[in-house]
């Protein structure tokens, strides 16, 4: 259902320590936000893209499919930043091009950092990490169960959609809308029923309220962390100099 999730599980850096990956991703994201977009944003974008494609060996096809949508949005958004509504109608804003270019560069840099994280680290690792940092256990457990259910419900929704299409439920906007409504109405009780069945299934395994599991954690490699910090120090230095 999610090529991003698959990449997160199968990339070369899957079992690198969560701390290493998140210090890199969140650090770079923060620099892209805080420092002037030029020259920091392009540097961040290059570093994060290289880490994703060359380091973690995520397939370029998957990566490209992921950036396509944000880039489309950015083009439309930037256009509106560059323009202004004046008395004489719509025109080019003074500094409009600069604002648009800066915002676009910053956003793209952040997107590459997000993609690095999303494509190398399963979402459940991040939830587990957030829990260690103080996210309440119940909320973390709900998030983990949500993740588990996503794929089940997603597969069901896809099958329902295919079944409706086969019976011409997609012919025409009106029918499409009605079919979608029926699909959602059918999906909801089935989702809740599945939740009840999981409750029975886990009760049989001795569940009494807390959902404890034994997870494997890769320890942080000090040299790698030092390297990451060094790179980030460089980018931060660049940012401070450009200010």
């Amino acid at each position: 259902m999610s090529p991003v999730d698959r990449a997160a599980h199968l990339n070369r850096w899957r079992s690198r320590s969560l701390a290493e990956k998140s210090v890199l991703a969140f650090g770079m994201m923060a620099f892209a936000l805080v420092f002037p977009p030029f020259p920091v944003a392009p540097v961040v974008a290059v570093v994060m893209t290289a880490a994703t494609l060359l380091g973690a060996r995520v397939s370029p096809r998957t990566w490209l499919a992921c950036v396509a949508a944000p880039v489309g949005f950015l083009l439309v958004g930037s256009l509106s930043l560059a323009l202004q509504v004046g008395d004489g109608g719509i025109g080019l804003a003074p500094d409009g091009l600069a604002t648009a270019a800066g915002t676009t560069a910053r956003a793209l840099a952040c997107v590459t950092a997000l993609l690095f994280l999303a494509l190398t680290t399963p979402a459940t690792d991040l939830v587990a990490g957030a829990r260690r940092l103080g996210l309440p256990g119940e909320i973390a457990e709900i998030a983990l169960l949500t993740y588990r259910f996503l794929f089940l419900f997603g597969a069901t929704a896809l099958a329902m959609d295919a079944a409706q299409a086969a019976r011409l439920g997609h012919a025409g906007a009106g029918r499409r809308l009605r079919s979608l409504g029926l699909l959602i109405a059918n999906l909801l009780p089935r989702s809740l029923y599945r939740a009840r069945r999981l409750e029975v299934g886990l009760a049989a395994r001795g569940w009494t309220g807390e959902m404890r599991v034994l997870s494997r954690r890769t320890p942080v490699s000090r040299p790698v962390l030092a390297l990451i910090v060094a790179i980030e120090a460089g980018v931060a230095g660049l940012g401070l100099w450009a200010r």
Partner: protein
Amino acid sequence: MEGYLPVGHAAGWFAVSAPFVIAGAVRMRRILRDEPQTKMMLAAAGAFTFVMSALKIPSVTGSCSHPTGTGLGAILFGPAVMAVLGTIVLVFQALLLAHGGLTTLGANVFSMAIVGPWVSWSVWRLARRLGLGASVAVFCAAMLGDLSTYLTTSVQLAIAYPDASSGVLGAVAKFGGIFAVTQIPLAIAEGLLTVVVINALEAS
């Protein structure tokens, strides 16, 4: 959209959203302490909301978009719970689909998991109290929930990027105008869709 808001705005929206999400989480934990099984139901509701928002909704204009699902979610699960579930859904959208983003999470939570559900829920309650039919109430709730979400997004963008000559208001008009073209038909579609869903749920 990841990285689209300047750092001060991104942080500001986190601060604005946090009280709502924390209040929802506190409430949720209280429910869970008494009935731990509810965990499964809440997770199912969250996953359902995620899947629903990933479905494609056809619009009158022939274009396609995604339903926000905030109206249905608010009517079914209540706005306080939706603040937490909506946040979880938005995090997973960013991580699994690369939609939305993490730096803009605060802003997106505010528009999609707080404003939208509260508007839908209030409209729904008000319409029922006024004695409007169930279908009309559901339609209005879902449509206005959808619209308010996108209006909020427009305002968020306008505050971040005020128009050089006409200021924030001009920018609201500018961003709002862009959204209105695509979003009003979609809001109507989402309203109709939600009516179909609620009717079908009641029939079975």
